[in-house]
């Protein structure tokens, strides 16, 4: 059994007990524990079930590489699935549950998959579940999905918050082991701006566990002193609990700070996503121990040797009373010593190498431990927990020599440098034959904005495994002056690559050798992939799912590559690795979204009158980031009724529209007229001062993109109104042409959209209302249609445009935005006697439709040219050029068969459904029903008491009076007559009064 030792544990504080629950059972740990060490301390070795076969899964590792020990953590708005217990700090009251089993961890129905494992090899699902055809979706897929999928689904809204932060540094050093610390000291002393980040809560990495001596001190003391030195340098920033999750182009390094994971609910942001811009990056991210592939290596109790050592030394926890060690290198003997020092039993060290005579093996022998040379594990005994191992000759086929009883196995297959960050931006690796590892190829690093190397790897991350060399290298890599710190650690004999144990294991054993214990990928699966031609390592990965689990194969991908290479008998470097992608370990979606949620999810643009609308029943419509009132609902009123009420009010008396969102762009200069003539299809240079003109803009591709009223303010100054969506777009468009094409033209522009609150006062009583406010002569003769005036209206600085989008007598009044609300209130007060009625965008839309005015976004959709909308009158014939003119000369644009704008009147007075198409006879070459037109705007007109619509119809204007058919579904066909699009007040008598 695993237990908490009486003494020891560098990182725990026995005076601070913490309690937590696992599957409802109360357990106890200490401050400084991880969930994993606390679970082991409470003899909870088995913590979950595997993905495919639902086999029992125990804790294997002590860090980021852990594939198995995932739990659901927390409750309600703080529940999170798949939490890696080895990297989660214990906190008081933590609630945890094991995953992927039903009904219980101990008894899991899904485990019957395990009985049939023989029938479920890699990719079996590609070869079956094909009949009957519907069965995949309705029978097989649901079963597959249910048994897969690991963690439970969060249900509640996240109770935590998150944030971003930007940091800048000359040098960011990733990894707080001795390599990172030495590099930081070296760089810090030269006054460079340095960041040193460490993913765990503690500095020192492996050296402090291994009992390395640095500059005559214990590594732990050297680390403590070094950190003090670093803290005293204000050019150095130190961060624990901060993981470099990815390195992106141009030195952009994402660092994931777990601010409050260990103090949930304390009000701080849970995670902070640092966006560090680094002049250079040093990865001192260490190395990860590899598992060994022997039968039953997935049984709970089989662990990495370094992890066993960590649990004993860091947390005072013993994974087992009797621990057999199996290895292909000397480092694992440190684990034997650590166990012995803790008073635990090591029945034997099984060393695959023909001979183990190094300093460390001898030290272990000296403590009376059997060292079995040239041996391996044939298979591990036990089900939910290790009960023993059977020993065999590594060079053989697995015949049992002896059986050793034990309750834990510590394995070491060598080490793999953590090369993720090095590789994220394309840094290449080389194969180190002697140490059997891929390590960074200094000749092929990832390059940055200047084309030079962006990253340097040092320490174990660079494949350097002895403390002394590591310190020297790290010191040098950071441009350290003077002598590097020196270290003493036991000398080590060479390791020997071991990819399958025993070497000659037959199929039966290989079907029990796990490479990826989370996804249940075994040696036999990789060999099957090779046999079937999935030869590329990327094919093998995707066919077997090797390395695609939540640990991304940190522990054993290399074993898989080696097995694949062996199966294809090609060298390992020819196989290569799969692509390393961010994040290094999974990061929360919450952190990725940062502060952007709720109120500040996105900017919400408000007009000066926004609050009034809000408090007066505005039914909002998002228009870009603005919100405009679609209509104003009175108590008990439906949307449709409200809209009709508003229209009647405007047509019969007077209404107010908040038009502040319309774009307002000033264009000024000697060449402004010439410029606008290029921008608009019509002639703007000839517009007299004091007057307004409706204008159209096209893209260079000829399509109508925006429209609005242009105002000539003075000899060299124009004001261009754009659509709400157009303001920024068109302003940018203007600047683009002025800066990049006609930079010799003397024109300045300014976007003054938000300077003004603009209100349309429309209806027969509009003039009366303005006269009541007083201060300006708005009479028919003094202020004709399509002109503008400036003055003081009811005490407000105002510019008034006499333009109409509703067909009514109408004035658009612009006042300073800061006074907008006051002016709105003044209009409401003065308008009371006329029953003045604020109206929304829908009323506006319907009224313009009654008048046959087009609407950008309704009549246009990016495929429509002005000619399609019979707007020829707004296209100057005198100009030999304007943006879009050339495009409109292309064959398809002048095709007489183009669909053109007409009015549509249903035969029965009903409303044609939105977006309906007019069918034509027959079908096309692809069997699709031919069409001859479509509806672009369709409404019920309260003014006319019937449905009205505009649409685009092939040769429409030549077909007045013709009735065409709109099939609208359910066999229903709406018949509509082609008519003039102007339905109301054709003569314009109402607006010209």
């Amino acid at each position: 059994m695993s237990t908490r030792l009486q003494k020891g544990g560098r990182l725990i504080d026995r005076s601070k007990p913490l309690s937590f629950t696992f599957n409802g059972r109360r357990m106890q740990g200490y401050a400084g524990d991880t969930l994993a060490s606390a679970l082991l301390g409470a003899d909870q070795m088995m913590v979950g079930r595997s993905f495919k076969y639902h086999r029992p899964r125990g804790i294997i590792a002590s860090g980021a590489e852990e594939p198995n020990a995932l739990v659901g953590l927390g409750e309600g708005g703080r529940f999170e699935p798949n939490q890696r217990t080895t990297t989660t700090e214990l906190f008081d009251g933590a609630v945890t549950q094991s995953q992927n089993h039903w009904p219980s961890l101990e008894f899991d129905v899904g485990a019957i998959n395990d009985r049939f494992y023989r029938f479920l090899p890699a990719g079996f699902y590609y070869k079956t579940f094909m009949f009957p055809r519907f069965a995949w979706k309705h029978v097989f897929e649901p079963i597959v999905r249910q048994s897969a999928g690991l963690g439970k689904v969060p249900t509640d809204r996240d109770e935590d918050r998150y944030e971003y932060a930007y940091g800048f540094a000359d040098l960011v050093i990733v990894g707080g082991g001795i390599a990172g610390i030495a590099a930081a000291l070296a760089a810090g002393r030269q006054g460079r701006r340095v960041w040193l980040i460490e993913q765990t809560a503690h500095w020192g990495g492996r050296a402090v566990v291994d009992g390395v001596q640095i500059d005559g001190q214990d590594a732990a003391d050297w680390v403590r002193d070094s950190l003090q030195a670093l803290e005293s340098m204000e050019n150095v920033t130190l961060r624990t609990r901060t993981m470099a999750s990815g390195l992106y182009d141009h030195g952009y390094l994402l660092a994931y700070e777990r601010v409050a994971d260990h103090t949930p609910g304390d009000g701080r942001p849970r995670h902070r996503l640092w966006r560090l811009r680094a002049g250079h990056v040093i990865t001192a991210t260490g190395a990860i121990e590899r598992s060994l592939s022997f039968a039953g290596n997935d049984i709970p109790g089989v662990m990495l040797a370094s992890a066993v050592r960590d649990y004993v030394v860091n947390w005072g926890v013993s994974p087992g009373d009797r621990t057999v060690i199996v290895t292909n290198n000397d480092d694992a003997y440190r684990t034997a010593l650590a166990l012995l020092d803790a008073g635990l039993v090591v029945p034997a060290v099984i060393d695959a190498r023909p001979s183990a005579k190094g300093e460390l093996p001898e030290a272990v022998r000296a403590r009376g431990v059997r060292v079995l040379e040239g041996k391996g594990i044939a298979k591990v005994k036990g089900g939910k927990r290790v009960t023993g191992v059977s020993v065999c000759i590594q060079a053989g086929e697995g015949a049992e020599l002896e059986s050793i009883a034990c309750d834990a196995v510590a394995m070491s297959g060598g080490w793999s440098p953590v090369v993720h960050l090095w590789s994220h931006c394309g840094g290449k690796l080389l194969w180190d034959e002697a140490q059997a590892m891929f390590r960074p190829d200094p000749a092929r690093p990832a390059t940055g904005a200047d084309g030079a190397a962006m990253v340097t790897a040092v320490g174990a991350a660079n494949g350097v495994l002895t403390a002394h060399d590591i310190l020297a290298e790290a010191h040098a890599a950071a441009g350290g002056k003077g002598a590097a710190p020196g270290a003493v650690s036991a000398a080590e004999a060479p390791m020997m690559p071991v990819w399958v144990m025993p070497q000659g294991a037959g199929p039966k054993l290989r079907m029990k050798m796990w490479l990826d214990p989370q996804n249940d990928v075994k040696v036999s699966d990789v060999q099957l992939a090779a046999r079937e031609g999935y030869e590329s390592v990327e094919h093998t990965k995707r066919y077997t799912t090797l390395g695609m689990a939540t640990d991304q194969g940190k522990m054993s991908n290399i074993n898989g590559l080696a097995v694949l290479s062996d199966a294809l008998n090609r060298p390992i470097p020819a196989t290569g690795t799969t692509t390393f992608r961010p994040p290094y370990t999974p990061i929360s979606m919450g952190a990725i979204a940062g502060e952007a949620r709720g109120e500040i999810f996105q900017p919400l643009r408000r007009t000066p009158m926004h609050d009034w609308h809000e408090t007066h029943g505005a039914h909002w419509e998002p228009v870009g980031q603005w919100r405009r009132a679609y209509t104003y609902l009175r108590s008990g009123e439906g949307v449709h009724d409200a809209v009709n009420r508003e229209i009647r009010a405007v047509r019969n008396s007077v209404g107010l529209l908040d038009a502040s969102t319309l774009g307002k762009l000033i264009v000024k200069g000697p060449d402004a007229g010439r410029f606008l003539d290029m921008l608009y299809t019509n002639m703007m240079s000839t517009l007299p001062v004091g007057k307004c003109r409706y204008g159209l803009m096209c893209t260079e591709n000829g399509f109508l993109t925006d429209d609005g009223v242009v105002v000539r303010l003075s000899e060299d100054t124009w004001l261009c109104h754009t659509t709400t969506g157009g303001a920024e777009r068109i302003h940018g468009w203007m600047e683009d042409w002025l800066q990049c094409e006609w930079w010799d033209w003397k024109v300045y522009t300014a976007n003054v959209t938000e300077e003004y609150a603009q209100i349309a006062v429309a209806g027969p009583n509009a003039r009366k209302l303005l006269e009541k406010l007083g201060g300006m002569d708005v009479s028919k003769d003094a202020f004709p249609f399509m002109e503008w005036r400036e003055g003081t209206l009811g005490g407000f600085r105002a510019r008034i445009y006499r333009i109409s989008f509703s067909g009514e007598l109408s004035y658009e009044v612009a006042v300073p935005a800061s006074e907008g609300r006051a002016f709105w209130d003044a209009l409401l007060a003065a308008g009371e006697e006329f029953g003045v009625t604020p109206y929304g965008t829908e009323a506006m839309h319907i009224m313009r439709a009654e008048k046959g005015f087009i609407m950008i976004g309704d009549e246009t959709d990016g495929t429509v040219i002005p000619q399609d909308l019979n707007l020829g009158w707004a296209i100057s014939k005198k100009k030999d050029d304007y943006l879009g003119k050339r495009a409109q000369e292309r064959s398809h644009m002048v095709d007489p068969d183009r669909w053109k704008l007409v009015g549509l009147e249903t035969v029965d007075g009903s409303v044609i459904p939105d977006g309906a198409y007019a069918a034509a006879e027959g079908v096309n070459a692809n069997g699709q029903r031919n069409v001859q037109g479509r509806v672009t705007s369709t409404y019920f007109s309260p003014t006319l008491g019937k449905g009205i619509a505009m649409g685009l119809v092939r040769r429409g204007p030549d077909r007045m009076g013709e009735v065409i058919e709109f099939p609208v579904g359910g066999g229903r066909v709406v018949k509509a007559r082609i008519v003039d699009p102007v339905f109301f007040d054709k003569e314009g008598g109402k607006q010209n009064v």
Partner: protein
Amino acid sequence: MLTLECPCCGVMAEETELAAGGEAHLKRYGPGSADDEFEGYLFVRKNPKGVHFERWRHAYGCGKWFLAARCTATLEVFGTYPAQSTEPPAELQARIRAKRPDWEGWK
């Protein structure tokens, strides 16, 4: 996440402060031009795997357009220069040629 120095205000801006604007040094073809000239101008853009000249706008900054020479295969930035240039500055071209000897030139 690119960084480019805006030649108009001197800020080393990050990508999120900028707006990309496609191929640089385009010649506009208007009325009277041939169909294929116009097609070439509007649609058939250079798309090299390597050295590329492109337009950028310092949108969340000084608002000015500028031009950049960048490698689309490594994202290396060779330099930025004013939008009011009819061709890449000679010294920039020289710098690129030094780094990319087999570069076929900007045209």
